[in-house]
């Protein structure tokens, strides 16, 4: 009977152990993240002040100075990478979602998956080989190219999923209204998928904003104001790297400050992605 029977004690112990173990691991993971964030905040907070955000780096030995050029450089490099990767990524995802049957589409999907696993330093090396070496000149553009390649797989995947998530009935509605199929897709399906595509975009941007390895031999870094993308450029992540491996305490402090700025930027992007998602649930 339901009331009389009890589970065997070994099964109850196993169940309890499962709860304890999974709960413990979750707490550990969350704790590590909080510890990491807390440590960066504690270390970085003292470095952050108005001059840190508005001034150029000072020469070694001169205290103070900031990472303003690196902040601007990050925006330029990531912005250019976005300009390159968004059209390619979104249209590829659209193609895969709408017409993506058969071997060619499977191949594109497979390649995108492989690409997402390629180490960023290898992509940086590739950018170096085709965009730096031939011109014998480091450039922000080559860094943007490397970042764009890094962003592509995620852009393609999220765009494909976003477009797939649009009810077929909306596409059929456009078709039944006498729109050529591509018209319906471009004007009706794509806007419906926009919130999710924006989410994917923000996450891809967050993903590359902290990338450093490809920058080592593309953007290279700079001590000066630089807004011309064909020149070497300071980028925040690169400055953190340079400062962190330096022997100066003042620079270490600035490295933590830069790290905190990057984490804040990624946090903002992630919150933006959530807001975009919330917009979607309101729409459908």
């Amino acid at each position, binding site marked *: 009977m339901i009331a009389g029977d009890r589970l065997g004690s070994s099964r109850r112990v196993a169940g309890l152990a499962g709860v304890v173990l999974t709960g413990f691991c979750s707490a550990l993971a969350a704790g590590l993240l909080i510890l990491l964030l807390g440590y960066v905040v504690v270390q970085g907070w003292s470095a952050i002040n108005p001059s840190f955000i508005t001034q150029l780096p000072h020469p070694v030995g001169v205290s103070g100075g900031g990472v303003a050029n690196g902040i601007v450089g990050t925006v330029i490099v990531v912005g250019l990478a976005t300009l390159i990767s968004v059209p390619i990524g979104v249209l590829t995802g659209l193609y895969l979602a709408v017409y993506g049957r058969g071997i060619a589409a499977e191949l594109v999907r497979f390649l995108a998956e492989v690409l997402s696993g390629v180490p960023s330093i290898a992509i940086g090396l590739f950018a170096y080989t085709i965009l730096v070496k031939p011109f014998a000149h480091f450039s922000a553009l080559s860094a943007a190219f490397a970042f764009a390649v890094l962003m592509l797989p995620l852009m393609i995947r999220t765009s494909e999923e976003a477009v797939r998530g649009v*009810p077929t009935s909306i596409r059929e509605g456009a078709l039944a209204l*006498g729109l050529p199929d591509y018209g319906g897709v471009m004007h009706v399906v794509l806007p419906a998928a926009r919130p999710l595509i924006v989410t994917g975009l923000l996450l891809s941007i967050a993903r590359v904003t902290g990338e450093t390895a490809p920058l080592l031999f593309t953007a290279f870094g700079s001590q000066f104001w630089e807004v011309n993308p064909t020149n070497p450029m300071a980028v925040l992540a690169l400055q953190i790297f340079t400062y962190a491996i330096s022997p100066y305490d003042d620079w270490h402090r600035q490295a933590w400050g830069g790290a905190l700025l990057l984490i804040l930027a990624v946090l903002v992007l992630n919150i933006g992605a959530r807001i975009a998602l919330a917009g979607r649930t309101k729409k459908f």
Partner: protein
Amino acid sequence: MVSSMDRTLGVSATQPEVKVRVRNLNVYYGQNHAIRDASLDVEKHRVTALIGPSGCGKTTFLRAINRMHDLTPSAKVTGCIEIDGVDVYSRDVDPIVMRRHVGMVFQRPNPFPMSIFENVAYGLRVNGERSRDRIADVAENSLRRAVLWDEVKDRLFESGAALSGGQQQRLCVARVLALRPDVILMDEPASALDPIATVKIEELIAQLREDYTVVIVTHSMAQAGRVSDRTAFFLDGMIVEVGPTNQIFTRPKDKRTEDYITGRFG
């Protein structure tokens, strides 16, 4: 048979004109033979209901009329569907142009992700209408025709998705009406709606009869009885019986129709 002489004398009032003529239609999904040799005459300015149990092929039949199966690679259609004497599957017919004359309302309301006004104006604009005044006129008329105008006139530029399900479905009807189609296909247009919204859609269908030829798929026999002039009963991909709705419901000729009507299956 009616001779051409009779037609000129106006006998067509008693012998209604055929708007859509379907002959020996077969639809296959891969190996699945979904429609078997179906033939049907859809009369002009009448509401024709397609009824039958789930999976009997009525929606498949409906979607063959405006070539929606073109989108499904595994679907194959044979036979002949003529609208005003023109075979819609012939080489000379561009399905995109044809669909402008054959509107469709779907089972679930599917407003486009844009404003209420844009939902109605969009089809016009895509089909080459440039005049803003004219677009606004047609949009208002279509919304009025769809009995939605009074409910939305103060918020035309809000998202179509913000409307209730019943309002969304009437918006979808307005969207179709804006293109002044000859034929309107409806695939269980009220199945996702509550009873009050259903009544409104049914009243709307009754009015549409004056200017349009309507083919409606419905699960509900009561609805077929309320809105349709003629009814076709589908079973296993075949049309078992076609006739005036009251005759199908009160004096079906086929035993299977009678079994279905009286609720013995389905």
